[in-house]
């Protein structure tokens, strides 16, 4: 790490304060964002700078304050609403799916909802079955909202501004295992548009497609595959809805093999959608069936060994990739 490196958490905070400084319509609200400093300490100190009127501590009323965020966006504000974790966002699912996602269409394009909702997601901290799930795909299923997953510090730094500039509701998912990651930040011009998938490592033999908390595991797997003489390309989706199929297809047409790594449950997963798209649109380029590594079909258990077994791990990715290439899996 060089001197300029900052954490994912700091990158998010910098992005929020920058947005609040440059646009008076932007405000942050959510549970414990003010006095407590945010449940993952993202907004620590922000209430000192912006005051309790723009860093609003809400009661435990997810449906109420997410809905109020939608209403405030209708009224000309640019709210950033923080929901502690995706599991709790289910209490606000009605507002997000039945209102935020539909108002533009239902009103015949009279109303737009320029709202950003941020929430933590994912397993790895032994928080068990009501705090650890990856439900990004539930939101990615819904037309009318956009779903972003910053999986690098740079994206944490720059994606928020793009989300705020978007005229439609955008949900940002922050994987809990990323907050302490640190890296140097590139110049803003080097951050691709939020709708674009990015090749994080190029390769020729297989495309490993992933997002969020699984990116670092997938990169690690790619490195290991390199040592077995397999050149894997790693693609970070970044935007789960709308999907940048162009980048995906380009890669698959080069490598002819695809493995999707997704922390969501396998059944009905985003990985399933990507495999289906590739099967439909790149069938004649494929040398093997599109394949995926997902979480096991079980609520996330508390003990560390079971939590690990339930979620995608590096060894599984390596093994699945080797199999797709008809290579013997090392013991």
């Amino acid at each position, binding site marked *: 790490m060089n001197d300029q490196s900052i954490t994912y958490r700091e990158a998010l905070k910098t992005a929020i304060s920058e947005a609040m400084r440059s646009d008076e319509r932007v405000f942050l609200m959510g549970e*414990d964002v003010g*006095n*407590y*400093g945010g449940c993952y300490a993202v907004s620590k100190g922000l209430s000192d700078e912006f005051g309790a009127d723009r860093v609003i*501590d*809400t009661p*435990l009323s997810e449906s109420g304050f997410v809905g109020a965020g939608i209403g405030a966006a209708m009224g000309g504000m640019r709210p950033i609403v923080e929901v502690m974790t995706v599991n*709790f966002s289910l209490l606000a699912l009605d507002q997000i799916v039945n209102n935020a996602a539909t108002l533009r269409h239902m009103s015949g394009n009279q109303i737009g909802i320029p709202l950003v909702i941020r929430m933590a997601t994912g397993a790895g901290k032994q*928080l068990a079955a009501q705090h650890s799930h990856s439900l990004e795909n539930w939101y990615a299923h819904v037309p009318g909202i956009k779903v972003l997953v910053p999986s690098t510090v740079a994206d944490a730094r720059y994606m928020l501004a793009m989300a705020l500039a978007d005229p439609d509701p955008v949900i940002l998912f922050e994987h809990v295992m990323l907050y302490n990651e640190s890296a140097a930040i590139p110049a803003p011009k080097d951050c691709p548009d939020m709708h674009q998938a990015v090749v994080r490592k190029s390769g020729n033999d297989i495309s490993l497609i992933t997002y969020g908390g699984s990116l670092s595991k997938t990169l690690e797997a790619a490195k290991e595959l390199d040592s077995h003489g397999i050149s894997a390309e790693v693609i970070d989706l970044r935007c789960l809805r709308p999907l940048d199929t162009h980048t995906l297809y380009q890669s698959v047409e080069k490598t002819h093999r695809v493995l999707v790594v997704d922390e969501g449950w396998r059944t009905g997963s985003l990985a399933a959608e990507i495999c289906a798209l590739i099967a439909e649109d790149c069938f004649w380029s494929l040398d093997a069936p599109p394949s995926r590594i997902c979480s096991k079909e079980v609520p996330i258990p508390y003990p560390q060994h079971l939590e690990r077994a339930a979620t995608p791990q590096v060894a599984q990715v390596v093994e699945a990739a080797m199999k797709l290439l008809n290579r013997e899996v090392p013991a």
Partner: protein
Amino acid sequence: MNTDNNKVHMDIAHLKLLFKKMLRIRRFEEKCAELYTQEKIRGFLHLYIGEEAVAVGVMQALSTNDAVFATYREHGHALARGLSMNKVMAEMFGKVTGSSRGRGGSMHIFDVEKRFYGGNAIVAGALPLAVGLALANKMQKKQDVVVCFFGEGAVAEGEFHESLNLAQLWQLPILFVCENNGYAMGTALAISESEQHIFRKAQSYGLKAQAVDGMNVVEVESAATQYCISIKNGDGPCLLECNTYRFRGHSMFDTQLYRESEEIEEWKSKGPIIKLRRWLEANGKLDPAELKTIEDQVEDEINQSVEFAQSSEVENVSDLCFGVYAESKN
């Protein structure tokens, strides 16, 4: 304790029992905090330290068939309800001998044999479940009470209001116990509720409701006992607001930027255990030798539970998907 004419009579032996029950929870959790720093217990750990009088007082009012729902801050409730300390400790360790086979950890302690229904980590998530269990009791003409514990933070959720309305509308045998410790994580009651007397909200739905000193175990027990009698009589649901305080952070991660240490110290000085101990001592009912005996008994039980948890096995990885559906391997 007996309850002729709905009046609760307490003798010294009973007070000592309450004292020991609270101390047992306190020492258990102090041990858990220590084990957490050693990474034997992981995930989130929410200590109940300071609030013991609420769980102990309310549980005294229950019979074996009454059911209990609690939150993620439920170790004290589990112990007060009579779950074995070994099972609770093993659950904290994630061992297969734990009350939920280690699957739930500190936030999800369940023991249906003791009619202890968790361990719910979605704020206000248990209230509708408790209403439903009370509905089942009523439909089956059972006299049993369902008790649901929750923090004052839960009152802001729609589930609180929906549950109270349903309970009153359907005249269900349920006791809602609001543990008002003044903070939901770092959010003080004053900045989260327009009406800060929780019991008044319940009254507005037509429930019988009152606030009591949640630091006074006797007061909690008396009020809960009276309410349980009324509920069993078929007089409808009740809500008890217990004013209390948590001495520790919300969880082990909390840096407590939102409150002053003087405030914590002030509440500590009127804590439920010290208060009862001082009263017993001042009245010559608890001498140092007896206190030491109690402390030693509690410590022995805790040490044994740690030993049990340490030496227990973890679940096999091959059984990962156990218990997702009824037909899974057991």
